[in-house]
């Protein structure tokens, strides 16, 4: 990166929906290019809202959010959003689904066909390109969703509990694949999850949030070098990181209950 200017910056941001209670309060965040930041916390802590503000899907109430030095909306073409369900269009084949962002951008047909094929190969799904989404398993759908998001080579990938509905085996494998994809297209990532182990495995920074209103409770740095492999999960230092984050999460959840 030419400059070390933050790719995502929150300055004293708060958010409420309509006249409702504060969802986010006093959020400050700076993300450097290449960061992989996970957000974890009890439900209702506003972690998904953080992503939506960055995506420009919702406005914030006070403070300032900037993405790549500009407003979230203007920076949209540098971002991609991955939702909890794969949000594939059921009437399009796998191939057509992956082509969609390029199609909407008006890319010529040969270009988008080739690019989609390349991305499907990258996630190991080139053999099912003619299938419709309902013929795919949950894990496959999520891979297609990843492939689709990466067609536009985003600088910033926003992932809202993307693997939450998958079984643990599939989730582990997709975690590994997600990191592998990052060696090719070096995106910065914001990742919302409920799983501490997932957050520790993927991120170099973990933000633990508290609820009502959503605040940043603590930040944990995870310094295991990339590329990370599956074996990392079995190492004691991984386990102690998981314990550290779990401990913080317990503090937060007790505060919610109190």
């Amino acid at each position, binding site marked *: 990166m030419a400059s070390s200017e933050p790719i995502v910056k929150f300055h004293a941001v708060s958010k409420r929906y309509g006249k409702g209670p504060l969802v986010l309060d006093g959020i400050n965040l700076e993300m450097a290019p290449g960061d992989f930041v996970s957000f974890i916390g009890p439900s209702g802590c506003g972690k998904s809202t953080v992503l939506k503000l960055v995506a420009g*899907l919702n406005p914030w109430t006070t403070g300032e959010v900037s993405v790549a030095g500009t407003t979230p909306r203007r920076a949209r073409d540098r971002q991609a959003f991955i939702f909890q*369900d794969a*949000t594939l*269009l059921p009437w399009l084949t796998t191939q057509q689904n992956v082509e*969609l962002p390029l*199609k*909407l951008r008006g890319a010529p047909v040969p270009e988008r066909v080739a690019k989609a094929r390349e991305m499907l190969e990258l996630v190991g799904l080139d053999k099912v390109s003619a299938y419709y989404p*309902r013929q795919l398993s949950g894990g496959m759908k999520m891979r297609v969703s990843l492939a689709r998001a990466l067609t536009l080579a985003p600088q910033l990938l926003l992932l809202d509990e993307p693997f939450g509905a998958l079984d643990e085996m599939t989730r582990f494998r997709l975690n590994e694949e997600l990191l592998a994809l990052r060696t090719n297209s070096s995106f910065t990532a914001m990742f919302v999850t409920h799983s501490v182990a997932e957050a520790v495995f993927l991120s170099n920074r973990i933000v633990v949030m508290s609820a009502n209103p959503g605040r940043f409770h603590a930040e944990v740095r995870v310094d295991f070098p990339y590329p990370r492999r599956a074996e990392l999960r079995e190492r004691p230092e991984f386990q102690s990181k998981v314990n550290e984050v779990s401990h913080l999460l317990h503090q937060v959840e007790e505060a919610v209950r109190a």
Partner: protein
Amino acid sequence: MKKVPPIMLWVLPLLSGLLFVAIWYGVRLGSGLQSWILPTPMEILEAAWRERARLLAAAGNTAWGAFGGFLLAAIMGFLTSLLLGVSKSLRSGLYPWLLVLQMTPVIVLTPIIVLWAGPGMPGIITVTWLISYFPIVVNTTQGLLSTDMNHVALFRMCNASRWQEMIYLRVPSAMPFFLAGLRIAATLAPIGAIFGEYMVGNSSGGSGGLGFLVYSYNTQIKIPALFATGLTSCLLGFVFVAAVALLNWAVLHQWHDSFERNEH
């Protein structure tokens, strides 16, 4: 629900049909009613055979009227829904008047339509259109407005224009709703055409439809033939419904969950 073996899907309606016919004969024989009040199924079939040329020609005419009105309703219904789907103010501005149109009984409107459009095909098509238009509009508009919010967010993230969102997202996701509207309209269209013909009387060129036959058989007290006309209308209705079911299958079977093979 307990699973019904596939063969029973044929056997059961056949059994209930046979039972119904048996009761029919029983009532006829037991009551001593005459043929011109309650003809037997056999007498109806005989009448149908005797009148086959007129019935077939009439069914053909009715089919054209019904098809014309149905097509018009499908096209106009779709376009109206696009208008209603695009803008909330158009929706609130137009919807009450669509309701007024639907609430006014067709039986009141038909003489007015005949007065304006004249007797014959134009009037019949207009009546058919009137009766099948509303369910298509309501269903399709509902479909255009029930797009998955995450899909909309996906399109926003891709900086899609409203136009792209409409044709690549809202219209395809409304397809099952549109087709459901067509299915209802397909049952209504032949009824609309026959009703139109009945009200219009003899249509142009001296060849009437089934509705005209109803009128003429009734005045001639040819009751078995009247029943036979009912049977023919029913068959025509089935053709319409089957055609739309086929269209529904062709559009949806590859991707829509309603065609999911039950493997669990």
